[in-house]
């Protein structure tokens, strides 16, 4: 593992580690590591055909009036016009924005806080780590159903609090169109923060002990050390966590289906559900494709800053 990591490290290390080609006259560009390159051809082809090809196909057909079967009768931007004048889509986007914004902030904050607490070398770290990570082992469908019960006013939280004597307590997010998305957010956070915590913890463990010692010598407090020194050093970990959370946000579907199925009414609809519904249930592929193209666009909008941070950052560091 460490060998390969060093192999990709900056220029000066290279002469020692890379195997020189037998024929010194030949330029060592394309033919180096032939076997590795050959081995990656299937994956490259798969990516090109399945992902890139499929994406282009979808985008092209989003400009057609395809119904149940894809047909190439172009209608220009009609599907997009209809999409952006559909209330259900607008609600979906709004929900995604709310869910995304809070999910991003809370997952990072809670994940990092938990990781930092575990990092203080507490007793029973393994047990806590397992408990926090456990929800991640459950699928979104199970998570959604479990929280549907927990948030059910007659069975869950509301009932428990009322039976403890607080009769007027009301907590019924899943049946209130205005706040239903927060009910889903709670379940999403419960499921997702564990993973981010583990990633953060790994990052924290990667911080050199010397840095802590140096901070202590300089008399910097623990919290300040975390915020001013450790977090900036963990930038790559944060970027990874950010991408994981963001992709989870955009593809959210099963949690909603299991927990509320978009209800009450259409108050908790999300874009991925719109895509599936229109492609298969409404038998309107063109509309579904247009919606999924909009989702792709939002992924690209997230991807470009990430790529900039990740690849642009390396040069500076």
């Amino acid at each position, binding site marked *: 593992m460490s060998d390969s990591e060093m192999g990709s490290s900056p220029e000066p290390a290279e002469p020692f580690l890379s195997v020189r080609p037998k024929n010194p006259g030949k330029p060592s560009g394309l033919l180096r590591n032939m076997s590795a390159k050959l081995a990656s051809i299937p994956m490259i082809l798969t990516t090109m055909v399945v992902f890139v090809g499929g994406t282009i196909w979808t985008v092209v057909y989003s400009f057609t009036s395809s119904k*149940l*079967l894809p047909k190439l009768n172009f209608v220009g931007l009609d599907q997009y016009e209809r999409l952006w004048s559909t*209330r*259900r889509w607008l609600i979906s986007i709004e929900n995604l924005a709310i869910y995304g914004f809070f999910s991003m902030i809370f997952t990072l904050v809670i994940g990092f806080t938990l990781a930092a607490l575990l990092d203080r070398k507490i007793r029973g770290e393994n047990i806590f780590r397992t408990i926090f990570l456990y929800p991640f082992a459950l699928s979104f469908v199970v998570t959604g159903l479990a929280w549907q019960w927990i948030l059910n006013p007659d069975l869950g939280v509301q009932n428990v609090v009322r039976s403890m004597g607080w009769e007027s307590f009301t907590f019924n997010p899943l049946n209130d169109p205005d706040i239903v998305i927060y009910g889903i957010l709670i379940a999403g956070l419960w499921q997702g923060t564990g993973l981010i915590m583990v990633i953060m913890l790994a990052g924290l463990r990667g911080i050199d002990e010397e840095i802590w010692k140096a901070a202590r010598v300089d008399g910097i407090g623990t919290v300040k050390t975390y915020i001013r020194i450790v977090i900036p050093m963990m930038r790559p970990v944060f970027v990874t966590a950010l991408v994981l959370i963001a992709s989870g946000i955009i593809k959210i579907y099963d949690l909603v289906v299991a927990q509320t199925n978009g209800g009450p*009414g*259409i108050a908790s609809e999300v874009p991925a559900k719109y895509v599936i*519904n229109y492609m298969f*249930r*409404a*038998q309107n592929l063109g509309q579904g494709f247009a919606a999924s193209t909009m989702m792709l666009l939002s992924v690209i909008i997230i991807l470009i800053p990430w790529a900039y941070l990740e690849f642009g950052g390396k040069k500076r560091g």
Partner: protein
Amino acid sequence: MKKITQLMASAAFLGATAVNATELEVTHWWTSGGEAAAVAEFAKAFDATGNTWVDGAIAGSGGTARPIIISRILGGDPMGATQLNHGRQAEELIEAGLMTDLTELAEAQGWKDLVNPPSLLDACTFEGRIYCVPVNIHSGQWIWLSHGAFEKAGLSVPANWDEFVAAAPKLQEAGITPLAMGQQGWQQNLAFGTITIAIAGVDAWREVSVNRNADTAAGPEYTAVFEAVANARELAKGSNVQDWNLATNLVITDQAGGQIMGDWAQGEFQVAGQVAGQDYTCLPGLGVNEVLDTGGDAFYFPVIDDADTKAAQMALASTLIAPETQVAFNLKKGSLPVRGDIDMSAANDCMQKGLQILADGNVLPSGDMNLTADTQTQIEDLMAEFWSSEMSASDAQARYVDIIASAE
């Protein structure tokens, strides 16, 4: 090498089964108790022809099963036969040549003369050829009333929608939710459709749903409809159940006055041991316009290039529509038979009402036959939002008009 032997082995296996009675995989989404019992009648009748019914039940409603069925057909893994709702759902599959043409069989057995109402067969017909076998008629235009709930409130059971609305305040005083409503788009849409036919009348309904006339949808008849639905929304406040059978259960247990639901609700009353006319009353067309739509289920046969399979498909097609099978199946299912020439005297009070309406010819084509799945989904989304929010009747009507205007 290994692949080839595997292939040969599986080919030999396939060959071996084909020599015996032909197995036909039949997919459907009839999985509740009464439905499963009804399907068993089909299987029994088909097995008696010397073939084998391989049951491919898909749990969940049609909304879940239909995409699975369609993707299997499109993906080149067709089943021997499949349930679908006749109408426009399979239109494009037929166009693409993926469904078997049943015209010859239909002509030989004279389906044209025996299927009643004829609109059922029309829905199976595409460019003059017949592609499906209708097996039953389900209608959505019913309201189911709990005798117990009205007794508790000291009222007599209403005979139509207006009396029901008038009785609602008394029900509420007695702590009873007047209208049970499952919080799912299709149920709210069904209630809307039913109220439309009762309030706006058949002509206006036909103008909008069949001819897609947006002007009528914007007209005064539909304004009255949307106001009635907004009122029904108030009556349904407090029924926080999801599934239709849970809503039916509210009626059965006298917690709700009534429910607008299709005739499949009858199965729930039967399972609960209730008697029509004694414990509950059913009013077709909300007791105002006694008409029923003629939706229902039909079987389609995907094209499979194999003579034995094809023969078995034809055998199944004629079994499904045979008189004995029709009686046995529909009594268990609680639906109406597709042929008018059979004896249904064993049917209960509500089914008899339905049969009478059919015999009188007061039928409408169902939504599936008129509007595409796309348009129906849009209307369903609108209704889901309308019922669960405070949207005004006029806003809802304006958006409904937009949907109808852009419908294909």
